[in-house]
């Protein structure tokens, strides 16, 4: 029995949930736990076979937002930095994906590599400016920088101006998947989701991840112990930015469309929203959050035009009463 888990649990219900989780975890053979992400991925792919086009599209949307959310959670949930400008990465990813595919027709893996580079450069630029501050100022700075990109995107006709860019098609790839086919594109999304999760999990389970957590808990103390927190924050932002950009690339290719609106601050708010909903600092929380938000929209839209009103109300209620989100009901912050 994990004493730390127990001592942190706030109520008897939570103690029971933690105990149940421990029991399940110890009942499953080690290899199964290790393979769980891959099994989930497989389940998603197999499940996808049975879905209609529209349902598959929704699931695809959810999974792309899930990648975005996990990337955001690394910075927010694990390193404790609230960025309100992550739309900068997401939107830029969408533009990069579509522009490069339209103009140069580069293969998909090259495109991903390019997205990683672009994401890295963007994170470094934003980081150098914004990471001198923290807390609210950091949030406002990232917001301002993302809005700057939004304004510039609207201005440049070469990338479509205010109407955005339409993709003529999706990239070719050496991987035996035809991305133009909806289901195979979905499979690629699943692969990227599982891949992202595994990589992020790896990073978080490493000493680097521990430093991130230390910064979240008490940055001054981490600094005193000897870590150069600025560099670690830059690293966290960069990793987060890279994966967010990749998510953006997939989003643009998914919709065949990239718009300046993907750079607008509401998108940054949305990813914060879904991360908090699902549970910050858990990595799978945002995946759940993404599902929740997209499905909420799906189910409410036919019933009520202003489903965002409900979303807003639920969001406020979650922050007030369930600040640890849905995943927070079963697990502590990691």
């Amino acid at each position: 029995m994990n004493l730390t888990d127990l001592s942190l649990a706030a109520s008897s219900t939570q103690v029971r949930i933690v105990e149940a989780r421990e029991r399940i975890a110890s009942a499953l053979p080690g290899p199964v736990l290790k393979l769980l992400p891959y099994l989930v991925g497989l389940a998603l792919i197999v499940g996808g076979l049975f879905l209609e086009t529209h349902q598959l599209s929704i699931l695809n949307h959810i999974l792309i937002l899930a990648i975005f959310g996990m990337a955001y959670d690394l910075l927010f949930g694990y390193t404790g930095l609230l960025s309100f400008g992550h739309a900068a990465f997401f939107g830029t990813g969408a533009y990069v994906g579509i522009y490069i595919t339209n103009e140069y027709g580069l293969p998909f893996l090259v495109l991903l590599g390019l997205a990683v580079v672009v994401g890295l450069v963007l994170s470094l630029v934003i980081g150098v400016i914004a990471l001198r501050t923290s807390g609210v100022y950091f949030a406002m700075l990232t917001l301002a920088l993302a809005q700057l990109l939004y304004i510039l995107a609207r201005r440049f006709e070469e990338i479509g101006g205010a109407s955005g860019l339409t993709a003529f098609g999706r990239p070719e790839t050496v991987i035996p998947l035809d991305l133009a086919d909806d289901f195979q594109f979905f499979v690629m999304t699943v692969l990227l989701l599982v891949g992202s999760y595994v990589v992020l999990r790896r990073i978080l389970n490493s000493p680097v991840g521990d430093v991130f957590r230390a910064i979240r808990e008490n940055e001054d103390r981490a600094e005193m112990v000897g870590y150069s927190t600025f560099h670690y924050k830059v690293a966290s932002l960069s990793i987060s930015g890279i994966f967010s950009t990749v998510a953006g690339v997939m989003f643009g290719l998914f919709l065949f469309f990239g718009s300046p609106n993907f750079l607008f601050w509401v998108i940054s708010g949305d990813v914060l929203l879904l991360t908090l909903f699902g549970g910050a600092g858990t990595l799978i929380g945002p995946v759940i959050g993404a599902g929740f938000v997209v499905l909420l929209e799906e189910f409410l839209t036919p019933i009520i035009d202003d489903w965002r009103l409900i979303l807003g109300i639920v969001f406020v209620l979650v922050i007030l009463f369930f600040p640890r989100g849905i995943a927070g009901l079963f697990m502590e912050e990691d």
Partner: protein
Amino acid sequence: MIALQLGIDNIVQGLYAGLSYGMILVLISAGLSLIFGLMGVVNFAHGALYAVGAYAGFLTLGVTGSFPIAVLGAIVGGAVVGAVMELSIIRPLYDRNPIYQLPVTFGAAIVLVEAIKFFIGSGNRQFAIPEYLSGTIPVAGYSFGLYRLFLIVSGLALVGGLWLFLVRTKYGLIVRAAIFDTEMVESMGYDVSRTYTLIFALGAVYAALGGVLIAPLFGLFPDMGTKIIIIAFIVVVVGGLGSFKGVVFSGLLIGLVQQFGRIYVPTVAEALPFLLMVAIILYAPKGLFGVEGVFTD
């Protein structure tokens, strides 16, 4: 000669438009700075409160047909919504990590904007300039819109009034003291939590005033607050948190920057305030008037 004349024309008109628009920014930012500077609360719903003010004024105008009463309607609307917000969603978070205020006010902003769409409709609305304030004044060969003059004058009066309240009245002193040392003020017998509600409501009122006063010029639409709130944040950061002088100066400055930017460098005009903000954060992080000012002295 003609070019010079046109140049001067542009400058004069630009100054006039920039100052009047800048005054609106000052009003909104004064509200934001009040809440942020005094309470330490980041109010992301401030843009929505601006919209609420505009719509409250619009509805009141529809019912009463009177502009002054419409402005009053905006004030009441702003105060009520602001007070309700503080009591229901901000107060529970005082004990928690302040970073949660950002998402909760963001959520509140969504709710307010969607509520406007729900109850009033998502289309654009027009707000008529009252008869006695429309038209132009000819001065030295230029014609100046009367309404913009009204904006400048009333803006100065409103901001001046706020300053007087905070600096010269007994209650204003209590407000500032309560922020400075809450426990002390409480132990002297004052109800500090009511003060917080008042400040938040007051900040909301100023946002609402900004909304209702600008409505006759640019019309109303539910999302009208989403872009201007970013500019308001920039004004507050550039001017310096907690500084009254700073808010007035930087609000007018940014109004002018945007106006002249639109005339002379239209491609990057919108980006200028952001670049200014980045420069300030990098080189003068306390803002232009950072430490001085009414709020912190």
